[in-house]
């Protein structure tokens, strides 16, 4: 399979009153055509910043370096006008909180058909409305003919997320970036939405980047996974290998921190807290919490390397 998206050595920094924050510091991952890549990490790991960088939506203060190759074209070299044509057309995005992600003063139909009209010259309003209804059917919204005239506040959380997905699918994108799409939803609704995403991915054959903090969601939905910690990708491999044979101490710790259904065995949490990402960081960013830490870890910056085929790890002990 060929790569649809390749992120190479991506760095994003933000200025703050206490100095520059290195929110993302040399991140590499790729998304193949037709696959679901999971990016998993805790808050502050940089997973959302990665997705916003792909969309070109990092605010003006943020400084972005590296390469984001989409169909072999570097998105970071594109002008704002070019990016605008790609956003919502070739790459689209859905967000964490469906309650606040829809504009409250426009109808659902209006917001979805706007996406269609923006990227398809020559489509009439009527055609756009028909397409909107079709999309809403696709995402499983009951009686879409009536619901397109409703405002977002009339929709439940699950229905809003369906509407958001419909909007994202409006132009049949090649890549869908889903940033914690089910975090704000109840479990039974989460199950519905994840099922829907998988189904749509199969039907339309696009690629999805699924950003989440939930290893369970990753295991059930994704083909490959990148684990992020403190602005780095610390491990990247296919989903089976990750859970069967995790290499990075952070990945291991994360899996051990998780209560497992049916087991009441004592959890082994990761000690301490993630570091703050100011400029003066040296060595491995997980060192302060790592049970296997050595002097080398504190001194040298690790790089990510392939330990076995398709399994990338950012750790001295593993890479040697």
């Amino acid at each position: 399979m060929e790569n649809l998206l390749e992120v190479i050595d991506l760095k994003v920094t933000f200025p703050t009153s206490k100095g520059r924050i290195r929110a993302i510091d040399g991140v590499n991952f790729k998304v193949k055509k037709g696959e679901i890549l999971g990016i998993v990490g805790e808050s502050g790991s940089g997973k959302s910043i990665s997705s916003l960088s792909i969309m070109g939506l990092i605010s003006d203060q943020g400084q972005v370096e590296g390469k984001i190759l989409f169909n072999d074209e570097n998105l970071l070299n594109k002008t704002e006008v070019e990016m605008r044509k790609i956003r919502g057309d070739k790459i689209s995005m859905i967000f964490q909180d469906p309650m606040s992600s829809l504009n409250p003063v426009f109808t659902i139909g209006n917001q979805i058909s706007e996406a269609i009209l923006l990227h398809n010259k020559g489509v009439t309003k009527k055609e756009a409305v028909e397409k909107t209804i079709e999309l809403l059917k696709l995402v499983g919204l009951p009686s879409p003919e009536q619901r397109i005239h409703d405002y977002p506040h009339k929709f439940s959380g699950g229905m809003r997320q369906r509407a958001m997905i419909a909007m994202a699918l409006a132009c049949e994108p090649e890549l869908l970036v889903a940033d914690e799409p089910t975090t704000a939803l109840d479990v039974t609704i989460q199950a519905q939405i994840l099922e829907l995403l998988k189904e749509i991915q199969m039907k339309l054959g696009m690629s999805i980047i699924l950003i989440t903090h939930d290893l369970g969601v990753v295991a059930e939905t994704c083909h490959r996974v990148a684990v992020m910690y403190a602005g780095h990708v610390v491990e990247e491999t296919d989903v089976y290998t990750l859970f069967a044979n995790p290499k990075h101490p952070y990945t291991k710790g994360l899996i051990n921190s998780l209560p497992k259904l049916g087991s009441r065995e004592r959890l082994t949490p990761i000690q301490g807290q993630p570091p703050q990402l100011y400029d003066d960081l040296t060595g491995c960013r997980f060192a302060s919490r790592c049970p296997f830490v050595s002097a080398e870890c504190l001194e040298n910056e690790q790089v990510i390397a392939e330990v076995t085929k398709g399994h990338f790890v950012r750790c001295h002990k593993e890479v040697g």
Partner: protein
Amino acid sequence: MFKYIMKRLCMLIPVLIGISTIVFLLISLIPGDVVDILLGTSATPEAREALRENLGLNKPVVIRYFEWMFNAIQLDFGESIRTGKPVIEEFFARLPATLQLAGLAMAISLLIGIPFGILAAIKKDSWISHVVSVVSMLGVSIPAFWLGTMLILFISLQLRLLPPGGFVPFLENPIENLKGMILPAFTLGTSMSAVVMRMTRSAMLEVLGQDYMKTALAKGVTPKLYRYKHAFKNALIPVLTVIGIQIGYLLGGAVIIEEVFALPGVGRLALQAIYQRDYPLVQVTVLMFSLGFVLVNLLVDIIYAYIDPRIRYE
């Protein structure tokens, strides 16, 4: 929508009763004997009795209150103590000048406030934004009567560009009318422009930070759509509230501006009535101003609901 408007109208009733009660009580609260104040202690007993009769002071206050309310509903607020004419007639005779003044002032302030407010929000941290902040700060701090006086001094007296005051009815001579209105309307509108500008700026900034604006960007909307369709309609909601409140300042300010520019409006009528202790006239002007304020805010509430579906379907 209809239900919403009906609900709003019903909510007005206690407020209207409250306003009229307070206006009625204004006279009853005057310390000392009103008749003494009005006629002096040397007046003849007959004259005193006649005035008492006119003001209804010979009845218990509760009865007077209900009589007054009953008459008020029929727009009968009694006669002017000084001229003997029904006060409501005096009021309506003076209304056009005030309406024109307030209307023009509002138009000016919206035309200045909204575009510059939007501009300041979009070009956040640029020099335009800073200029807007400073100008709007000055605008709310400058006393209207002083600004008016200064404008008369420089534009009318020194440069002789516009008349320093006076009022020509619009139908009589539209050009002279407008010439005479420019300075007062500008003076009155200054503080409101400043407030509208500040509110538009901060409301736009607030909206631009919302999640749904990120959705719009992710959709690939053009900057124009982004600002004016997605952002402005949402930002308009708090701005409208402020406009509603500012109408109150506009009406209050009209009293002062009419005095400065010698315009024959309701505000000046109220002042004269106060100077002459013509209490029925004071009552009617205060009552009508408040009524106008309340009705404008009702209108704002309705526009509000028109823009914001969450309120419409409440």
